């Protein structure tokens, strides 16, 4: 760039100087010519005054005295040269000469005879043409010599100006060059070459702008990504700074605190209305220790954890903020509640047989039963109830196991075999009650847990036998992959149907007790179906019977 400046400057200098010079020369030339023309015209006038038509040589002498180089030529009307002061001998006709043709006007031309530029002028005087000729000033020579001087001066000028311009522009351009080097560095270009080309500045600036745009864009994307993540969390997140103002809050938290407005920057009191939570927050600011609070809201329970944030997160002042994390623990609390209920129910259920056992035994122990028959009955009752308690506990353990996440082993299960085995197990009861079993069993195998499937089938058949009428029948149909057990038992009313799968639900408590029922049979069946994704349907009609259908796939 510096070169360009220098070159341009020099060029301008050169051109203007040249122009100046040329115009000067031209002016000089013109001026000179005019002068000479006037001079020769003046001389002609004088010559014409002196010439009387005959004193050719006299006049010739005179002009020779005036100017040695002046030449007089007298030409007759017919063109014949009568006298010439410079040339002797015959001369051709001069009639055609321009100065003759145009009397009074100076003709400026090269003379072959004298080998130089001459000025000619003629007039008609006293019967003849009087023509004067004078050597033109060799103005060219002057100009030429002037030119050389000019050239030298000119070169000098150029040299000096080049140098100074160079120096000055260098000085002026230095800061720009430095900035450009800097720009080049930002852009990633370290070559010095670029620092001289001023076009590169705009390129670099464009480049930088592009870089900035890209950076801003990627920052925006990052910010959006983080925002998205924060707001997609299924937990609430609120961050308070050392001034107890809200620095960050995600959508989940906004929903919990039931606010929609933009509260970033506001004090937390705008967000938290619950006095208990406010107290907790203040405590954490005071004690710098983690704290928590359970919030019950809208049928859900949330655990709020308050933690002091290290100063590295916020800034480097010696203060800190607080993070509030909100987690929905309704599920956990629900499960806890159900467990509690189950235990309460279970202990309740176990108290009845226990009361009976203790009661009868105390009667016997205190000799309050005298009748032998009655005593026997009491002892039997005790045994029966003890067995029932055992059954209840076994069933409860089954349910607990089913609910737990225990690894279950799968194997090929022969459904037909299980049914046969179960019926064998109950052969005594079946005989005692004169029940008729109708089997329609096809070989069916499924992949499942053998023990649980056995339990399932056992409970269903158990019910069919327990709640049957004397001499009643049970129809068992097994097809791939469906089991139907139908009994002609006492049935269940529509009202009770909806509760049948509930734990410890019994339609007839007395009958159930008699049959050593636990109230958990169908509950276990339901659990197993849920665990292994079997579908179960249960229909019943009072006095007609019940039908259970299980789909294993």
């Amino acid at each position, binding site marked *: 760039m510096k070169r360009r400046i220098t070159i341009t400057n020099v060029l301008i200098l050169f051109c203007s100087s040249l122009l100046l010079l040329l115009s000067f020369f031209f002016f000089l030339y013109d001026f000179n010519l005019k002068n000479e023309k006037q001079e020769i015209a003046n001389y002609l006038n004088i010559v014409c005054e002196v010439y009387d038509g005959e004193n050719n040589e006299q006049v010739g002498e005179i002009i020779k005295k005036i100017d040695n180089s002046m030449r007089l030529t007298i030409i007759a009307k017919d063109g014949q040269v009568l006298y010439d002061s410079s040339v002797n001998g015959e001369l051709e006709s001069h009639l055609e000469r321009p100065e003759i043709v145009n009397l009074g006007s100076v003709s400026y031309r090269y003379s072959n005879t004298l080998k130089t530029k001459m000025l000619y002028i003629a007039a008609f005087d006293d019967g003849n043409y009087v023509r004067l000729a004078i050597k033109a000033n060799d103005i060219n020579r002057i100009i030429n010599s002037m030119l050389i001087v000019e050239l030298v001066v000119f070169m000098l000028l150029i040299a000096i100006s080049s140098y100074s311009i160079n120096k000055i522009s260098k000085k002026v351009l230095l800061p720009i060059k430095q900035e450009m080097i800097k720009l080049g560095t930002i852009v990633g270009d370290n070559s010095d070459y670029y620092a001289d080309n001023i076009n590169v500045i705009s390129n670099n600036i464009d480049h930088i702008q592009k870089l900035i745009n890209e950076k801003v864009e990627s920052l925006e994307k990052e910010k959006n990504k983080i925002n998205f993540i924060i707001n997609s969390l299924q937990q609430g997140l609120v961050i308070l700074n050392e001034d107890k103002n809200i620095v960050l809050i995600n959508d989940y938290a906004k929903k919990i605190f039931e606010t929609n407005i933009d509260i970033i920057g506001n004090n937390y009191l705008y967000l938290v209305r619950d006095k208990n939570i406010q107290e907790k927050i203040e405590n954490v600011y005071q004690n710098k220790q983690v704290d928590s609070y359970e919030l019950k809201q809208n049928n859900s329970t949330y655990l709020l954890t308050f933690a002091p944030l290290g100063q590295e997160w916020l800034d480097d002042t010696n203060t800190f903020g607080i993070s509030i994390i909100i987690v929905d623990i309704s599920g956990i609390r629900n499960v806890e509640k159900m467990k509690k209920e189950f235990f309460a129910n279970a202990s309740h259920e176990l108290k009845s047989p226990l009361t009976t056992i203790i009661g009868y035994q105390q009667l016997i122990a205190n000799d309050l039963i005298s009748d032998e028959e009655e005593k026997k009955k009491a002892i039997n*009752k005790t045994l029966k109830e003890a067995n029932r308690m055992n059954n209840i506990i076994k069933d409860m353990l089954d349910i607990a196991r089913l609910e737990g996440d225990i690894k279950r082993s799968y194997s090929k299960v022969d459904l037909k075999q299980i049914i046969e085995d179960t019926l064998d197990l109950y052969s005594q009861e079946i005989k005692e009650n004169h029940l008729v079993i109708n089997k329609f069993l096809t070989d069916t195998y499924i992949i499942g847990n053998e023990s649980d499937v056995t339990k399932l089938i056992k409970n269903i058949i158990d019910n069919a036998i327990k709640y049957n009428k004397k001499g009643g029948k049970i129809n068992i149909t097994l097809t791939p992959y469906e089991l139907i057990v139908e009994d002609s038992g006492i049935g269940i009313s529509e009202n009770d149907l909806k509760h049948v799968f509930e734990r410890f639900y019994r339609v007839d408590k007395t009958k159930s007790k008699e049959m050593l029922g636990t109230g958990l049979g169908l509950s276990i069946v339901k659990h197993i179906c849920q665990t292994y994704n079997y579908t179960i349907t249960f229909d019943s009609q009072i006095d007609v019977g019940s039908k259970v259908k299980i789909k294993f796939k």
Partner: protein
Amino acid sequence: MNYLIYSIEDDKDIAHIINVMVKKQGYQIETFYNGKSFFDTFYQKKPNMILLDINLPDINGLEILKRIRSDVSNDDIDIIIISANRLVIDKVDGLDLGADDYIEKPFDILELMSRINAHVRRFKRSRIIQAGNVIIDKDAHIVKKDDQIISLTSKEFDILALLCENKGNVISRDIILNSIWGNGSYESRTVDMHIKSIRNKLNDNDFIQTVYGVGYRVRV
């Protein structure tokens, strides 16, 4: 002994056990397995005591309790709750609603019997009133003064019993009238006349004091 207990318990075995025990103690007992059958009989004949199970098939035992206690004429029926609920809150609820005692299942039958006996004793104590040298047996309908039987009319008996039950306290004529004769307009002089007769028969004019303008009082 003339003591009637109603037992409301849906578990037949437990009901049977209670039955045996109570009978052995010499009380009369009738067992009901649900609320409906209980109320059917209750309104015909009221017992001295009710053994109440809370978990009944057709109605919550506490409802039965509330219903019984809503009628003041049932106030002298002792109600003992026998329940499998053992939370303190259940006990508190039961007792606050008007039960006189609460026993948890499984219970020691000897304990149950002792408690029943304790309630019977208190009842009995309320059946025999003593004031000075006068003893009134409500069940036997006998008044004795210094071991001598005094013969009173029905109304006289009732008035004397009322005054002795509240010995030391003044009972106004109106209260005496309402308690003994019930509602209806009676001549207030009736009371005075009965009192006079009682004093005569007791041969003691100081036993029943007259508090002028207020009523009568048995001295302590």
